[in-house]
């Protein structure tokens, strides 16, 4: 079987309206893929930065995959949350990105969005906070069933991922 190592970091997040952010991440693959070692999901620290430009997570990722097929190439999906001074959490954005297919080091910016709901919900959110969340988090990384959703842009998640491939050329796969 061909093998892939994904070695890197969730570096941080920029462009969100407030700071004190954290991020939940997970990895989604097709059926032919198997995780041999490493964590498949996690949650970063909460960063409340001194200079209010970027939140830094420095969250390590180290996953070892084995695969029998290319379909369902792994995707990383994220949820960015804001934690206020009372410890309440509020959803700030959803996003996903594919694990790069070419070996080497990649700096990735993952754009995020959040559902914005109806006019009433938007007004109540601007006064009270909170806001709509996805009932089915699969929608973060699937293209089906998105057509009824109304969303708005949020910030970016910054990743640095190193990809090591093994035995791809033995099977004639060109990456």
């Amino acid at each position, binding site marked *: 079987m061909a093998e892939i*190592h994904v*070695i*890197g*970091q969730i*570096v*941080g997040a920029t462009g969100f309206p407030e700071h004190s952010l*954290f991020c939940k991440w997970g990895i989604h693959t097709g059926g032919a893929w198997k995780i*041999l*070692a*490493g*964590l498949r999901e*996690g*949650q*970063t*620290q*909460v*960063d*409340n*930065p*001194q*200079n209010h430009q*970027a*939140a*830094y997570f*420095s*969250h*390590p*990722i*180290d996953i*070892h995959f084995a695969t029998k097929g290319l379909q369902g190439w792994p995707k990383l999906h994220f949820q960015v949350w804001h*934690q206020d001074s009372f410890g309440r959490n509020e959803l700030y954005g959803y996003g996903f990105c594919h694990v790069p297919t*070419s*070996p*080497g*080091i990649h700096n990735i910016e993952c754009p995020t969005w959040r559902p914005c709901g109806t006019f009433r919900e938007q007004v109540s959110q601007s006064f009270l906070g909170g806001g709509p969340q996805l009932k089915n988090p699969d929608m973060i990384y699937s293209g089906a069933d998105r057509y009824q959703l109304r969303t708005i842009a949020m910030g970016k998640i910054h990743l*640095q991922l*190193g*990809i*090591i*491939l*093994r*035995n*791809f*050329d*033995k099977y004639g796969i*060109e*990456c």
Partner: protein
Amino acid sequence: MATSSVFLVNVAGQIETGEFQEFDDLYCKYCFVYGPDWLITSGLEESISQITKKSEDERQLFCWNFPLDVTFKSTNPYGWPQLVIHVYGLDVFGVDTVRGYGVTHVPITPGRHKRVIPLFVPESSSTLQKLTSWFLSNRPEFVDPRVVAQGEGRDVTRVRSQGFVTVSFNVVMKDMKKLGYDVLPSDMSTVNVPENVGVQQGQVSEA
């Protein structure tokens, strides 16, 4: 030579500089954190730098210029080494206090790499603790700095990021390709050079 399943990663680099807004007289420690299949064959796994003042110009830079020289050996890239840097300085009462933790992976491709590592310190969980920790000079810190290289159990920590450290790496590898590992795209690692490059006309020999 016996066929071995070991590859080597040589890291030569330095902790170059640091940027902090409000501190002075800082020193840093580093350690490498790596998985169970990895071993250091030569070099220092951890060390402590000198104490440096910040530069007396508008850059306000801390310069450590501190060497890193390590060779790793492993059978499996899982658990790839990470460099953990922690910076310390004296607080107003003259007590050694942590000023930041930071972590980065050793670059996985050969060549020269530069990393600007953000540093962060853990925060007190309440305002009262924040106050008492300031007066008693016992800021919260990690019992083992290696936790910043782990992905598990991070969700309970609240941190404040302050400052950066710049590190440069020069990475050389041995036997990665032999074991079937590709760390660079195939068009870069096996460059397709036309046969007539570097050969004078009429001198192409049949090999």
